[in-house]
């Protein structure tokens, strides 16, 4: 088992957003979390990645048998958690490759492995850039500096390929992508699917799931997982919306 979330309650500025989430994801599984705006989807992925500003009021998250909530965001990264941002951040003047190298080497150091030198690392990133058809010139540019929306999302998946996470959280990775870019990004993610890597996709739309087919689909609404099903659930949601799930849960 990769991650187990039990009765997770969390609030932002005193307002309860998550109201008892229970979720278990096994190694190698791909889960989609769907739901209307403001349902708590992004809150959940941010809490797993360790972002500030959220207060966990009760419940627990166990990741690879450890208490995840005790770890700093960088420790979570070292232990294999990766968040592909909905809105990737620009960091002017900081070279894309330099950022990744610092991240990879910090993790290697944490695990008592030898740090990669500049040449080894360059070789690694060139190879990974091909996965998402990222132009090598992006590697030497500032982090997301002047990237288009699509380029930023592609860069996120490229970073995922380099950091080789055990648990990847893709937060609205399809938003802002045209159909060609979506195909490339999804293709990259599919190449990264493996039996020891779990992926959680947070999305509004079925569209992404045509390209990255999930094993499990959850409906998150009003701070709770109201329904869980197979990939066909996503199609049903696309057709019928979310209200019927709410009604069914209330009944």
């Amino acid at each position, binding site marked *: 088992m990769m991650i187990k979330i039990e009765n997770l309650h969390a609030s932002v500025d005193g307002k309860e957003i998550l109201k008892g989430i229970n979720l278990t994801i096994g190694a190698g599984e791909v889960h989609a979390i769907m739901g209307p705006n403001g349902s708590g989807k992004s809150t959940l992925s941010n809490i797993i*990645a*360790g*972002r*500030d*500003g959220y*207060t*966990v*009021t*009760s*419940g*627990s998250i166990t990741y690879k048998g450890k208490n995840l*909530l*005790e*770890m*700093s*965001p*960088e420790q*979570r*990264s*070292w232990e294999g*958690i*990766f*968040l592909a*941002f909905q809105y*990737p*951040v620009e*960091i*002017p*003047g*900081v*070279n894309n490759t*330099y*950022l*990744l190298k*610092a*991240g*990879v080497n*910090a*993790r290697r150091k944490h695990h008592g492995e030898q740090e990669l030198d500049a040449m080894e690392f360059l070789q690694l990133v060139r190879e990974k850039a091909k996965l998402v058809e990222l132009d090598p010139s992006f590697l030497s540019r*500032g*982090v997301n500096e002047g990237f288009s929306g699509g380029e930023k999302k592609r860069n996120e998946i490229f*970073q995922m390929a380099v*950091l080789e996470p055990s648990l990847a959280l893709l937060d609205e990775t399809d938003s802002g992508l045209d159909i060609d870019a979506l195909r490339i990004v999804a293709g990259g993610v599919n190449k990264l699917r493996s039996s020891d890597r779990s992926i959680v996709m947070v999305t509004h739309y079925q569209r992404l799931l045509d390209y990255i087919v999930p094993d499990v689909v959850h409906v998150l609404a009003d701070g709770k997982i109201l329904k869980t099903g197979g990939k066909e659930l996503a199609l049903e949601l696309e057709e019928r919306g979310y209200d019927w799930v709410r009604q069914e849960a209330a009944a």
Partner: protein
Amino acid sequence: MSETRQERKPEEFTGREYEAGFVTDIETDTLPPGLNEDVIRHISAKKEEPEWLLNWRLEAFRHWQTMQEPHWAHVNYPPIDYQAISYYSAPKSQKDGPKSLDEVDPKLLETYAKLGIPLREQEFLAGVAVDAVFDSVSVATTFKGKLKDAGVIFCPISEAVREYPELVQQYLGTVVPTGDNFYAALNSAVFTDGSFVYIPKGVRCPMELSTYFRINALNTGQFERTLIIADEGSYVSYLEGCTAPQRDENQLHAAVVELVALDDARIKYSTVQNWYPGDENGVGGIYNFVTKRADCRGARSRVSWTQVETGSAITWKYPSCILRGDDSVGEFYSVALTKMRQEADTGTKMIHIGKNTRSTIVSKGISAGFGQQSYRGLVRIGKSAEGARNYTQCDSLLIGENCGAHTFPYVEVKNPTATMEHEATTSKIGEDQLFYCQSRGISEEDAVNMIVNGFCKDVFNELPMEFAVEANRLMEVSLEGAVG
């Protein structure tokens, strides 16, 4: 249950510990505090100066007495008692002036070695010649011989007064006149040492020249004077570094730097200023009130000021260029970091007089903790400056909630053919930038440094290699006092 890991807020980013804060225990010859004509006569006599220089000093002093300390800068500090400062302090062993490094007091060599300026090894390792100024005197100058072969003069200014009086008399005070401003007048009256550089016609100085200033003695002001003359078609790159011990008292540093560039000459002047900044409560630290000015006297001459200002409690400094020669170029690249209770009011003046003169200003200000920082810059295009151009870029980065950044740009254009560009930004190190880096496995502390260094990159690229590494290190903003 709540999250138990430690949370640290950006306002706790204060600064790495000041590594140069030690005191060298050495016997000194120090004048008692106080300033009057006798003190000036005493300094002049100690330096065995000619009559004209004594008179020059006295004239400056008389002028200074009529002047008011300026208070227009956006900084706050208690009144300075100029009679409580000692205006001369020199290591006793220096009395007769060492003829070579072998005669330099080992304690002094050790001091510079501790600061990363090994005066001995330097001779063999790097292509950098060093003039080491300790309190009021120059204690050693390396590579003098090799430079002399190229015709380059690089020596303490006190020595230049004796050895090359005509050159000194011809240029001293021609860029920064004795009565230019309060601190320049004070410096002219009491300056004790500093570096003198002369690059003859057509000579490209074969190595980087560097002066390392160290304040050591208690209650002593440092008033150094640097004069660099680049004759026609010559080139020199000059580096300056500064440190001082950690003390609870404030100390005054009021330097004057004059640069003269003749036809087709180029001077590249880089500073890494790391005077003791005071502690986190604002106790102690250096008052750094400095006048630096370049006169691009010759056609097609070019002067670049690059400064990395990380130290001092208060900084008041505007390295400037007078673009007198036609087609001359002035450049100012600055990174200033104010953290804890530091305050800095810094910028530049570009005075365009000649035709087709060009100036570039790139200023990067970083404020953390309770630091306050102002960019103050003047670009003046005179009537005669046909076709002049200026580009100004002025960026501020704020770390935390309690610091401040201020911008005071002044522009005066008296010639309609001028081209002016001005860009300014203010940004904060966002929580989202930090989290982004952390989620890639980079610690919060390393993330802050990475973001700050990225912000400064344009300026660091202008620094000579030898200084770029040190600058990066000095910019490290570390975390202190984490709360659970």
